[in-house]
């Protein structure tokens, strides 16, 4: 009999415990209701891409020496380099250059290895089209610069989490003066130039 009562007591204790856990869970859910939504209401609001963002690749036609390094480092040999050997100049002459961004995985290896820096990554990510062949960008299309989110009057730019001041969790309703900890990349670049001008010329 005592054993049975003990069992009932244990069972009741367990039940109370689980009820308390459910109560704690409910309070957590309830607490979340008072927090500001983290929703970024695209296309009225857009996140500012970080400076490491690897978006659509930009190409400068005149800098290219048709070395095809980009093709060799590409995981699937994607860039199409159409060149012709100019016998008078004894130089390769570039005729067309294209990358199909419907196939590209945006690893930016080509940018990394380009010897003349004619390739670079942009922050453009809005690449939707009605026909996948439209994503095959030629050198003219790749030479265009994207419109910056911060310059667009139709869009409220919102900073990403890593660019918020310490202790802030949401990029909404933040004054522009509230900066993240540490130097901004522009400032870092400035100090590099003043400290070693010879190096930067190399």
């Amino acid at each position, binding site marked *: 009999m005592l054993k049975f009562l003990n069992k009932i007591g244990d069972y009741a204790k367990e*039940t109370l415990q689980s009820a308390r856990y459910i109560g704690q869970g409910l309070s957590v*859910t309830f607490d*979340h*209701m008072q927090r500001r*939504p983290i929703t970024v209401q695209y296309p009225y609001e857009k996140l500012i891409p970080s400076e490491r963002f690897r978006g659509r690749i930009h190409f400068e036609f005149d800098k290219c020496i048709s070395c095809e390094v980009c093709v060799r480092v590409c995981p699937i040999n994607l860039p199409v380099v159409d060149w012709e050997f100019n016998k008078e100049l004894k130089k390769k002459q570039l005729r067309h250059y294209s990358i199909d961004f419907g196939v590209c995985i945006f690893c930016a290896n080509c940018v990394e290895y380009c010897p003349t820096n004619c390739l670079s990554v942009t922050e453009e990510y809005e690449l939707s089209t009605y026909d996948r062949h439209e994503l095959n960008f030629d050198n003219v299309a790749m030479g265009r610069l994207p419109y910056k989110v911060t310059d667009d009057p139709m869009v409220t730019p919102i900073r990403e989490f890593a660019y918020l001041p310490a202790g802030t969790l949401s990029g909404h309703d933040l004054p522009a003066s509230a900066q993240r900890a540490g130097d901004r990349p522009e400032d870092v670049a400035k100090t590099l130039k003043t400290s070693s001008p010879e190096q930067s010329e190399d």
Partner: protein
Amino acid sequence: MNSGIDLQQSVIEILSNLGLPPGVAKLVWLPLPMVLMLVTAVLGVFTGVWLERKISAAAQQRIGPEYIGPLGILAPAADGLKLLFKEDITPGNADAVLFTIGPALVVIPVFLSYLVVPFGQNMLISDLSIGVFLWIALSSIAPIGLLMSGYASNNKYSLLGGLRAAAQSISYEIPLALAVLAVVMMSNSLSTIDIVNQQSGYGILGWNVWRQPVGLLLFWIAALAECERLPFDLPEAEEEIVAGYQTEYSGMKFALFYIGSYVNLVLSALFVAILYFGGWGFPVPLEQVASLLGVSETNAVFQVVMAAIGIVTTLLKAYFFIFLAILLRWTVPRVRIDQLLDLGWKFLLPVGLANLLLTAGLKLTFPFAFGG
């Protein structure tokens, strides 16, 4: 106890004063409350769906519907419209008749249960002497519809889903009935009006929550399981690919299930308000306050105000419990089928029996407090 406004009598009187014979006047009156109740139930569903979306969004730090009407209140209407225009498919080898009757059999009893939901002394369609029992009896028709639609779909997943839904509904009906029985025992009546009246008089102190806290928990858990809401939504299980007995349904037949589940939720919340939270009773006993202030109970303005307050308090209490259900939905994980049946048979049933016994004992010992 003053009976408050009697709409039926006043409408019939007005009509007979206009020259209609009393029989015709009654005939004109008859469909009015039913239509009103149907509209109320549908509006309740709309509000419920909208609240579900908004509160879910808030609990997940999202915004939820925003541009479909002000604050997205037209989102449920948009859902309904979409389902209305969708093709109504009957699978090739399904039993077309049973496949069509199934959803209707799930929805109609739920709507019928609104017959006994009171919003005031005379604010209900019919004050049946079997009130709550009618609701319990009607809610046990739903499993037949679920099983029917699952079986008629001619799909093994639908059949399994239907069986699960039926098993769940049947096993949770018993604790639900036991919880209701304890309340009924205290008020000596099955009529919803009597149950509310027995709680009135002392404001918030007279409500059944204080006498039936265990019963309330039992009732609410069992009601959630009856409505197939999280954490007991495993017959349908939204996140999973196969939607149980609803798998083969589309268009308006699916919409019937959808509406049915929300009407059922609103209904259960209303019944919690009626059985445990004093129905239309205000937390402060307004009648006594009025008589203290010297306002006559037969005063027309007072009666209208009281009726309005009654409706609003009933709805507020009900929607508080809908809010709780939505909050629970995003807090508690879904239980497994064996855990579900375990909870129903091994926990709720014995606790319900013990609660009933305890209530009976208390009723004999303290007849003044427990309705002797």
